[in-house]
């Protein structure tokens, strides 16, 4: 048996719905249809009152979830694409994220954002918005890179008492497979050493973990052992694990698929430079997508985002510094 990243997300929701009557899912086309990506396929049949088709009203979807969360429910909002959450931005960052702080009453909503680029998706169905939400106090932002994490972290997200922005990567939906779902797992707030090495560390998250692995494989053939840190949760950052890895390798490339100005990569470099300056044997390096909207055409898209090749070059440069 094998299970995909997408199925893991479906299974986590199934389990959450089964385990707690407080869980419900609200989103466009997620009912009988099972969602644009089929992340809720079959769930409406099992939980007809709690897997609910929404009108195309992202602001009100988020508002409704927040109201229910204040009452102690654990709503999940599926945005059809992360990109469309811009329309719910205000409710998420100003209503949900501030709620506990303002009122002492937690707001346990989970906002699922199908994120990231796939060929042909273009500027409005490809975005990575983790940095936008992470900037605001009161949010937790998760970016699972593996099938197992998609499952266990989504369950943690749903049962966490704060708003969780759950950035699931569309490129991994069908591509990524595992043998089975985990019964035990690393807590969501911990980063993971996905591969150990000693010449340099690549710090990354979500789909880029897999590009980094390819680059590391290739660099291995050249005699370099590259350590890979999968952040898993980009807010809060597991700074101990990050600094631990940099301490071992002395060199760090921070890699992300999102836009280059600001964001996770800059935040990690900033933290490491401030808190672990003397661990660095070379300037920290950064690799992101190009500073343009995400192109539709696969030829442009492949060039726009970091790939195993450009990662490898960046590491090679880093190793020479």
């Amino acid at each position: 048996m094998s299970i995909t990243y997408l199925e893991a997300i479906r299974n986590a929701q199934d389990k959450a719905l089964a385990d707690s009557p407080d869980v419900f899912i609200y989103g466009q086309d997620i009912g009988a249809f099972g969602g644009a990506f089929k992340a809720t396929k079959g769930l409406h049949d099992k939980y007809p009152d709690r897997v609910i088709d929404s009108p195309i009203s992202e602001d009100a979807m988020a508002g409704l979830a927040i109201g229910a969360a204040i009452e102690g429910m654990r709503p999940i909002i599926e945005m059809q694409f992360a990109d469309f959450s811009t329309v719910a931005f205000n409710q998420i960052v100003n209503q949900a994220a501030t709620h506990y702080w303002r009122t002492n009453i937690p707001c346990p909503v989970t906002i699922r954002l199908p994120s990231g680029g796939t060929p042909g998706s273009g500027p409005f169905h490809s975005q990575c918005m983790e940095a936008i939400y992470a900037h605001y106090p009161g949010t937790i932002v998760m970016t699972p890179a593996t099938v197992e994490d998609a499952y266990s972290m989504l369950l943690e997200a749903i049962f966490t008492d704060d708003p969780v922005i759950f950035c699931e990567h569309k490129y991994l939906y069908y591509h990524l497979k595992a043998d089975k779902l985990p019964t035990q797992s690393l807590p969501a707030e911990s980063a993971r050493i996905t591969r150990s090495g000693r010449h340099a560390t690549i710090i990354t998250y979500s789909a880029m973990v897999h590009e980094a692995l390819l680059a590391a494989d290739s660099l291995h053939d050249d005699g370099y052992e590259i350590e890979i840190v999968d952040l898993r949760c980009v807010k809060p950052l597991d700074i101990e694990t990050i600094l631990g890895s940099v301490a071992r390798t002395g060199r760090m490339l921070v890699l992300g698929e999102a836009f280059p100005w600001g964001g996770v990569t800059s935040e990690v470099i900033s933290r490491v430079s401030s808190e672990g300056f003397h661990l660095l044997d070379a300037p920290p390096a950064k690799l992101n997508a190009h500073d343009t909207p995400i192109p539709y055409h696969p030829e442009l898209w492949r060039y726009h985002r970091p790939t195993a090749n450009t990662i490898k070059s960046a590491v090679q440069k880093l190793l020479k510094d």
Partner: protein
Amino acid sequence: MADVSTQNTDTGMITPEAFKDAFRWMVLARTFEDKISSVYRAGKIVGGVYVGRGQEAFSAALAVQLNRGKDVYAPLIRDMAGRAAFGEPIIDAARTYLGSAKGSMRGRDGNIHRGSPRDGVPAMISHLGAMISVVSGMLFARRLRGQLDDCVGAACIGDGATSTGSVHEALNMASIEKLPLVVAIANNQFAYSTPNSRQFACKDLVDRAIGYGIEGTNVDGTDLADCLQGFHKALSRAKSGKGPQLVVGKMLRLSGHGEHDDSHYIPEEIRSSGLGKDCLAMARERIIAEGWGNEGSCQELEEKATKEVEDAILQADGEDPPDPYTHDWNACFSERFRDTQPDQ
């Protein structure tokens, strides 16, 4: 003038008791807000002061018909009267304005942004229109849990807020979900300085209801009895499964947008029109005219309110402000997800 019989009947008529009850909260609200304005002018309040002068009837008429601990009530800027009628202790208003650490917002937010979600009063964010869908969510949760019974949710907005996308999405969604929601629009003719003519171009704001398939009612916001009756009807319909209800009240904001604003832009013509009537003075006159009370009993009420307000403000003013050094600076509830950033 709306009918006020001495008997509460199924036809939605309002009793003198209900009228007097609402009047009491109107008096308290006006007294409090007059006082807080003078405290503001004395420079003792940071941030703004936004009062509901002229809107007390509309505000109280809704909330006095709700049940604290059961219903949901989402007041907005000018709902001091409704807040009081819904059971918000006057001391909380005083504390929030005066920055006592004991206020429900603990100094984190101020003035009209106070709330108490566990009592059914969500704490508003400033972004206009954003609270309606939150109220829907609270009702939605209760229904999913089988705890909806005949409870109802009410959300208040102004004429200006009707131009936000949020209000549209929320009304449409509530209608689809057939939630027992009453949305009260206080059309006080202005949004800050902006008149209705630059806010919408429909003949009657209540016609928005048609576009959502919900029921709409106009009331005279200067007439307490009419407000009571309009909301009574809307609340009964909402509770009996008829879905969301829109109630639009017309009146004039008898103040500036905030106490910093002299509202010079309001034309004399509107001020002296029927819209400019003071709902509080009118309700008082009616009580006396109908013999439900007299000058003496009204004065007694007013004096009681003055005492209550002065006590609350005195008490709040004597309380400690929040102390940043002992304050809990955490935006997240979950300890394990708190950021480990070195203290800023």
